[in-house]
């Protein structure tokens, strides 16, 4: 076995040798040469820095200190204390890092992303649309004239989704070359139309590339004469149709007719003043300054019309003219379309449409009988109508406006269809959707209506919920109303709130406590008709609430960040001081102090502070911070009328304090007057409770310590029970016992004492018969003693509470004083009795002074305790007979300040935090001063070294 180990040992040492060799050669052949070459490089790099530092070190100390303040650690670097420099710099960068990490300085404000809930529709649609688009291409009537296919957009669509689109087969292919979904669309009738389409596109291109004026010079690029003839035929047929349906024809015709008619009328001797021929062929003739409507002329005109139409030559002329023009029309139409497309793309489209819509709307309204003065058709669909010189805004009447809007759309489409200008009203909010939708529309010769389009599309999306729809609506609406959008964004976008980090936002929040309360977006409900009526879910347009600034959270964070700043300030000052001192030392002694020594000394000297730190931090953020918060609240108007997050609270300065010390006006809650009432009762209570317990305990201790008492300890154990039981429990028990129908009253009733008092007139009367003055003071209750609920005689309850409190409080003093008494030196008594003092004198001159002196410091503590004795009041009387109401500023008859504050803070119907804070501060000032004064008097504090 040992041989094995020997062998292993040999190999182990060999291996060790090997590794050592490798290591050494690594050093020799790699590190050393690298270092050799690196050293000069480093030297070159660091030499200037070194030089710079040396120069800087020559600056006066306070300058170095200032530099260190600007960039922490820099001073230490100049002083060549690298570790300290690193530490300070790390803290510095930590602070800056926190500020930037908690803020979002880089992002831009985006109302949709940041504030409005719901998902964007885009992804849903873009995943969907190639399929959908493709299916719907089938519905295109392939034989509609001049429905030329614009495949560029389909190409675009395909590309953006990672597919390819093959025009020849009209198929989408995915990246692997596989067909996406559908059959080809085949155009069953003539390839002619395909060809025409192609040709027309060529024409279009020609037109586009040619200058607009030289249409005459365009040649149809057609392959052969036959085709050309065919095309021309078609064009003529189209032209004739166009002529007949074209509004130009109508106009032309009517022009003709007008001329003729005017001639005729003038011949007949009428004075034709303003002949205005609209298409209904009514003419206004002024005869002798009276306007007559000459629909009687219709016959005449009809005749003329027929004549004209039947005048085939005329028509032919016209037609010929138009025929030529029709090509032009087509070309012009194409130009128009291109222009339109350009307009649409460029953005004037909206204006164009708006104008068009505006005209139509005006027409409608005029038709309804309104006088449309200034028709200002902005995109919020508000119209100003002047009816009898009053301007009305139709904005609120969404229903009416909606209907009109729909009408307008429909009318528009009709008129559009009628004019055959392919203007399509689109809604879009990103270029993708934009293009797609635009592409789709262009495919459609006659599109039913925008609404149906949206319905069709939206109906197929299943993953959207109400929030998403509302977001989409808002998007659409704001696309049309960019001014409104920017107003809202300006309103909501507060740089400090949205962008800054922990420290800056904290400071701002502290100063302003928020500047924006809730904003509601409701305008988009006006276009709610766009929402699909889907069967499975109820989709409705709802107002979108944009959260405002949450005042109390801002205040809280502000205070926290300021406290952190205090700590940072401490480090900052330490940094500057250290830089200053060290550089002075260096200048004087020419030696850089040893950092190790510094840290050791630090540990030695600051050991105390280091140990104190955890408790200090805990106290700062859990005890001090809420106190500052409470202090701050006292200077605000944080109450039930101003509740974040719905509303903001703001600084009101000393107003609350003024209110406490002044007389209130009738309407508002009389906090001031009530405060003094409650305060005086609190004082009375505190004094009474303290002294009754103190002297009660004293008397009891004296009795207990009497020599005649046997088994003193047993008696003491019994009598100390009230103190031993948790005060909370005893207080609650009293509440039960002294209930109007509780145990005590039952006993009193059964023993006949109740009857006795009734006979004496102190019980048994109703509330209203309580009487006044002394009679009232002696009113103990209605049927029973109303210990806790005597509304007519609150002093009864108050005195009762004081007496009851003795039960709770005397045992402590009794035990205490009993202990003091037993520890009094017996020899004092002996000496006194030798001198002839009676028992009573001994008591008066020895016992009493010593005991009282020993326990009097407790008086102040007990006084403070009773001043703030929440439990006795709250649990036993609940604040006293009479629930606090508005008139009494919510204070009951036995409420002391602290229980009142509790009510003001905790009761969900009251919530006057600002006043509660004010009172707390006042309490603190009183009790705090008292306690501090008392404490500084004690020996201990003075002796403390």
């Amino acid at each position: 076995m040992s041989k094995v180990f020997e062998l292993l040992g040999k190999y182990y040492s060999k291996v060790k040798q090997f590794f050592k060799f490798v290591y050494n050669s690594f050093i020799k052949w790699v590190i050393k040469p690298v270092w050799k070459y690196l050293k000069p490089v480093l030297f070159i790099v660091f030499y200037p820095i070194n030089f710079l530092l040396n120069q800087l070190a020559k600056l006066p100390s306070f300058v170095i200190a200032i530099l260190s303040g600007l960039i922490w650690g820099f001073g230490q670097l100049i002083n060549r204390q690298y570790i300290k420099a690193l530490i300070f710099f790390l803290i510095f960068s930590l602070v800056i890092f926190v500020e930037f990490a908690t803020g979002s300085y880089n992002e831009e404000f985006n109302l949709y992303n940041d504030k409005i809930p719901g998902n964007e529709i885009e992804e849903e649609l873009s995943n969907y649309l190639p399929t959908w688009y493709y299916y719907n291409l089938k519905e295109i009537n392939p034989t509609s004239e001049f429905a030329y296919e614009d495949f560029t957009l389909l190409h675009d669509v395909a590309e953006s989704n990672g597919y390819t689109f093959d025009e020849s087969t009209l198929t989408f292919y995915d990246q692997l070359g596989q067909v996406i979904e559908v059959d080809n669309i085949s155009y069953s009738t003539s390839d002619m139309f395909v060809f025409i389409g192609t040709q027309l596109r060529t024409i279009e291109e020609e037109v586009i590339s040619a200058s607009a004026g030289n249409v005459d010079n365009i040649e149809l690029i057609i392959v052969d004469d036959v085709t050309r003839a065919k095309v021309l035929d078609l064009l003529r047929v189209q032209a004739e149709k166009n002529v007949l349906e074209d509004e130009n024809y109508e106009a032309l015709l009517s022009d003709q007719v007008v001329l003729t008619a005017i001639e005729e009328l003038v011949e007949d001797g009428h004075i034709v003043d303003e002949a205005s021929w609209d298409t209904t062929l009514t003419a206004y003739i002024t005869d002798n300054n009276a306007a007559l409507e000459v629909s009687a002329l219709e016959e005449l005109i009809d005749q003329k019309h027929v004549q004209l139409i039947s005048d085939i030559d005329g028509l032919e002329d016209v037609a010929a003219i138009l025929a030529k023009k029709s090509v032009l029309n087509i070309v012009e139409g194409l130009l128009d379309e291109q222009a339109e497309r350009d307009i649409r793309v460029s953005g004037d489209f909206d204006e164009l449409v708006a104008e068009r819509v505006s005209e139509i709307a005006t027409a409608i309204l005029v038709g309804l009988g309104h006088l449309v003065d200034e028709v200002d058709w902005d995109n919020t669909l508000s119209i100003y109508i002047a009816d009898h010189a009053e301007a009305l805004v139709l904005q609120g009447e969404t229903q009416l406006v909606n209907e009109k809007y729909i009408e307008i759309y429909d009318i528009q489409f009709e008129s559009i269809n009628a004019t055959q200008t392919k203007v399509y009203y689109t809604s879009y909010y990103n270029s993708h959707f934009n293009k797609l939708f635009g592409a789709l529309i262009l495919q459609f010769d006659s599109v039913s209506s925008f609404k149906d389009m949206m319905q069709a599309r939206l109906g197929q999306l299943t993953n959207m919920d109400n929030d998403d729809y509302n977001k989409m609506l808002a998007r659409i609406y704001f696309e049309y109303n960019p001014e409104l959008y920017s107003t809202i964004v300006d309103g909501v976008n507060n740089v400090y709130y949205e962008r800054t980090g922990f420290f800056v936002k904290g400071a701002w929040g502290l100063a302003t406590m928020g500047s924006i309360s809730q904003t509601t977006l409701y305008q988009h409900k006006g276009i709610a008709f766009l929402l699909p009526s889907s069967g499975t879910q109820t989709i409705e347009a709802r107002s979108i609430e944009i959260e405002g600034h949450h005042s109390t959270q801002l205040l809280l964070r502000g205070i926290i960040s300021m406290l952190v700043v205090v700590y940072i300030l401490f480090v900052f000052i330490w940094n500057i001081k250290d830089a200053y001192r060290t550089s002075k030392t260096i200048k004087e002694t020419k030696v850089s102090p040893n950092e190790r020594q510094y840290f050791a000394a630090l540990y030695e000297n600051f050991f105390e502070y280091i140990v104190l730190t955890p408790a200090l931090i805990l106290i700062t953020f859990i005890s001090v911070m809420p106190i500052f918060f409470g202090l701050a609240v006292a200077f605000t108007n944080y109450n039930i009328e101003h509740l974040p997050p719905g509303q903001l609270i703001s600084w009101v300065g000393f107003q609350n304090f003024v209110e406490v010390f002044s007389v209130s006006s009738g309407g508002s809650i009389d906090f001031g007057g009530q405060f003094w009432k409650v305060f005086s009762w609190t004082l009375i209570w505190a004094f009474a409770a303290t002294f009754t317990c103190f002297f009660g305990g004293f008397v009891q201790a004296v009795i207990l310590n009497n020599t005649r008492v046997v088994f003193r300890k047993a008696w003491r154990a019994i009598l100390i029970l009230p103190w031993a039981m948790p005060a909370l429990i005893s207080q609650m028990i009293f509440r039960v016992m002294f209930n109007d129908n509780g145990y005590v009253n039952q006993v009193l009733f059964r023993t006949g004492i109740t009857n006795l008092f009734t006979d004496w007139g102190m019980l048994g009367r109703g509330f209203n018969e309580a009487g006044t003055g002394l009679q009232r003071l002696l009113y103990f209750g209605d049927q029973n003693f109303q210990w806790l609920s005597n509304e007519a005689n609150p002093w009864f309850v108050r005195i009762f509470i004081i007496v009851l409190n003795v039960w709770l409080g005397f045992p402590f003093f009794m035990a205490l004083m009993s202990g003091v008494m037993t520890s009094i030196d017996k020899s004092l008594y002996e000496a006194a009795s030798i001198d002839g003092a009676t028992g009573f004198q001994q008591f008066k001159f020895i016992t009493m002074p010593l005991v009282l002196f020993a326990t009097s410091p407790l008086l102040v503590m007990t006084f403070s305790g009773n001043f703030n004795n929440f439990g006795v009041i709250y649990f036993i009387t609940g604040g006293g007979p009479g629930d606090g109401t508005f008139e009494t500023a919510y204070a009951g008859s036995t409420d002391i300040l602290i229980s009142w504050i509790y009510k003001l803070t905790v009761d969900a119907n009251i919530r006057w935090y600002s006043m509660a804070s004010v009172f707390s501060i006042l309490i603190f000032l009183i009790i705090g001063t008292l306690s501090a004064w008392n404490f500084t008097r004690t020996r201990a504090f003075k002796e403390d070294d």
Partner: protein
Amino acid sequence: MNLLLKGFLIFLALVIIFTLQSLTVAIANKKGKNTTKAGFIGLIPGFGIWYYLKMKPERKLSITAIPNILSVKNILGTAFIYSELVALSFVVIVPIIYTFGTSLSPNSGILNTIWPENPSLINYKFLFSGSRMVGGIEETTDFVKWYWNTLQVAFLTMVFSVLFVTGTAYVFARYKFKGKKGGLLTILVLQMFPSFLSLIAIFTLFQTFGLTNEPKALVIIYVSGSIPFNIWLIKGYLQNIPKELDESAKIDGANKVQIFFKIILPLSVPIISFVAVTQFMAPWMDYILPSYLIIDEDKWTLAVGIFDFIQDVANTNYPAFAAAALIVAAPITLLYIVFQKYLIEGITAGANKG
């Protein structure tokens, strides 16, 4: 009338018994006999006095000694004292017995006599099992959960209080440093602030961190609230430990930390246990904080839960309240009685010696 008479007779009887006892002991004392034994024998009225009167005195007595004891003045004085004691004891004990009685009462209304006619343990069962059927409707209670919550909170408070306060108090007690007096005064002043001021802030703070409804979060507040007072207490105690111990340890080469752990801590076990005990007991009786910060009923602590038994107007349950009160009060009362001397000293030290 009957009740009154009954009560008065009992009272009278007790006073007489105790007066006689006292006289017996006085006589026994004068005669030099064992007073404790005399105390017990003296409880038997009449017999005790006669017994001791007959005894031979162990030492010389003056002639007036015994007659003085049996003088009218003395007897009246004794009777007076004892009537006061008995009356007061009545007043002290009656609520407690009444609570016992209520807790054993089978109806849920207020008990009108001091002891129910059909005492039953139904209320205790109700509290521990969590539910019972009353007239066909099931009533539930989360008493056990409340107890457990409060126990956890109390335990954690105890541990963390001691941890945070001891080291800090040590530093204040032993070392001089800049800002010490100011720090002490600040701590004192902090204590004076009514907790309501911080209530809203704490609530907002907890809301921000999602800590409402979490009883353990209360521990943070209790611990930091306990720091001021307990620093005083422990500091005062530590100041009584002679500095020479420190110095000799330093000479032996101990550093500050070692002095703390090896010398100071073992000597301050009494005061640390006091702090631990008081901190353990404090959360059981705190109503204000849990009532505001904890919303779910099953996460309440005991104080809030118990008060709810009698405050919730729709659903008052006085016997359950009494039973719960007793369950909670019993251990604390016992602790207080056993450690009363200590506790009183501690409380006065807080105001007195510092």
